[in-house]
């Protein structure tokens, strides 16, 4: 794509993202009303036992006696002003609660993503290069196995092995509360706590990327430009790196965008297992307390993060692949 087309392409992508975000707000709104019982009870997050004064306040604030369209407008205006509601249980605004936890989740998913892409592409490339040998078989079987194992169970097994039995790595939390470390010592402590959750979350996607890289590399390896490169005497290693792998990486970028939502979902399970103080853990706590406002806030914020990430991969793709259609 020529660079001059980029602004129009970007504008369309941004518009589409805005529509998705609005649709999610409407989705949340509809869920509040589809839930069994009074919408105010759903928003208060406590069935039956809520105090009448607070319920009355909610009814007034969200215009629950007015027509549904007016209510939707009030709700939408609130969300667009970044007001995600109030958690009566935690006595705090939902937006603030989530923002406090977001960095931990971004650190965890980012690390897991890096492990998955680096490990997956390396394994996939190795399998494709040695196609049909024992290395290929081992990698294919491993990928199948990771693919079939529940994330939370992998986490528990890693805890069992590395924390309980070997006592190498901490199993819970993000840092050691008794250490009160600062600077490099704190980073080191966080890094140690990060290893198990990030590996757990990364393994499943590592399997996905390994399979994807292997398949696309085998596909690209058959194409004419690769034969041409070989015919003109380019060394085999360079053919694989500069011609095959480079082209095989494009679907990996696309897939990274598609998988972003799953990665965020997986972090709820992983954060629950490892007591990692991110929004996944927040969602789990909200789940136990039936604090629906927080759950909807988590759904909204994670969706926005995914939409932004998709925008980024689209842009990256357009920049990397000159053939991409401006659609």
């Amino acid at each position, binding site marked *: 794509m020529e660079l001059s087309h980029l602004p129009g392409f970007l504008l369309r992508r941004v518009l589409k993202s805005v529509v*998705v975000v609005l*649709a*999610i707000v409407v*989705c949340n709104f509809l*869920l509040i009303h*589809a*839930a*069994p019982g009074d919408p105010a009870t*759903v928003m208060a997050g406590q069935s039956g036992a809520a105090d009448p004064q607070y319920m009355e306040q909610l009814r007034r604030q969200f215009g629950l006696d007015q027509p549904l369209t007016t209510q939707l407008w009030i709700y939408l205006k609130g969300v667009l002003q970044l007001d995600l509601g109030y958690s009566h249980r935690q006595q705090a605004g939902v937006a603030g609660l989530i923002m406090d936890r977001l960095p931990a989740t971004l650190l965890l998913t980012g690390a897991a993503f890096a492990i998955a892409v680096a490990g997956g592409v390396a394994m996939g490339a190795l399998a494709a290069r040695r196609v049909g040998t024992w290395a290929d078989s081992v990698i*294919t079987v491993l990928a*199948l*196995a990771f*693919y*079939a*194992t*529940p*994330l*939370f*169970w992998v986490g*528990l*097994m890693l*805890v*069992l092995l590395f924390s*309980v039995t070997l006592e190498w790595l901490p199993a819970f939390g993000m840092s050691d509360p008794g250490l009160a470390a600062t600077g490099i010592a704190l980073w080191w402590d966080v890094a140690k706590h990060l290893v198990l959750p990030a590996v757990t979350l990364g393994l499943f996607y590592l399997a996905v990327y390994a*399979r*994807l890289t*292997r*398949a*696309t590399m*085998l*596909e690209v390896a058959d194409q004419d430009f690769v034969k041409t490169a070989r015919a003109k005497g380019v060394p085999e290693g360079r053919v694989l790196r500069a011609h095959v792998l480079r082209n095989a990486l494009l679907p990996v970028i696309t897939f990274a965008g*598609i998988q972003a*939502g*799953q990665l*965020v*979902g*997986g972090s*709820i*399970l992983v954060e*629950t*297992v490892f007591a990692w103080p991110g929004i996944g853990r927040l*969602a*789990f706590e909200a*789940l*136990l307390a*039936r604090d*629906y406002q927080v*759950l*909807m806030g*988590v*759904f909204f914020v*994670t*969706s926005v993060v*995914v*939409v932004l990430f*998709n925008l980024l991969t689209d842009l990256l793709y357009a920049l990397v692949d000159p053939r991409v259609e401006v659609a």
Partner: protein
Amino acid sequence: MDLLRRFLRHPGAVVGAVALALVVALALLAPVLFPGSPWDMAGAPFAPPGEDGMLLGTDSLGRDIAAGIAYGARVSLLVGVVATAVSVVIGVTLGALAGYLGGVVDDLVMRFTEFFQTIPSFVLAILLVAIFTPSIASIVGAIAVVSWPPVARVVRAEFLSLRNREFVQAAEVLGKRPLAIVLTDILPNALSPIIVLASLNTASAILLESSLSFLGLGDPNLMSWGFLIGSGRSVIRLAWWMSVFPGIAIFVTVLALNLIGEGLSDAMNPRLRKRGSA
């Protein structure tokens, strides 16, 4: 028969089919093998595997883990199959509409599908089950709601390529009604990718169900694998067997379904064998 022979030539698929048959047998025979309720105390609390006559040990309340796994198999398989059936019905309907009608309908359906593929589906599933209170119906519904998009995409693609074929045009010229053409001419020809996808979707539905019940969103009246692991989580230092064995059950079942899916895919598309098996 030819299909069966090609399927049987696939060693992974055969292993998968045998493993799945064993899990189905375990589910069917649960009341015979373990006559009591899986919720009842069967031995001393925290009995390790093999002790106290408990093959796989007991949990913190003395419940038999092996019985829990057998009864959990019923829930996992049931949820997996029913949720997949519902998601296939939704996906086939939307995909067929988009692919057959094309134009604005196609555009709308595809935007709708993309929306569901973009949002974090697991978070939506949690939200749905939590709001509609955990029960087997809300779990099946939530899983179906988040797993139909791939079916819709595949069906749409098949319909797009089939709808201009000569046999479809012939049926149109003969004055056959559109619904009849879709059901009797196009759909039967699009079945093989749907079947493959259904077996893979059943695997992910079982994973999803176990994740939900691990988080405490299982049907409170039914024993499930995810619930067993979830209750073993906090006592993993004391009783590893509480989390290890139910996890192996999930792993075996999901792997078996994935292997069967791949075997079916290879058997139905013999030309694609060995190439790009992702």
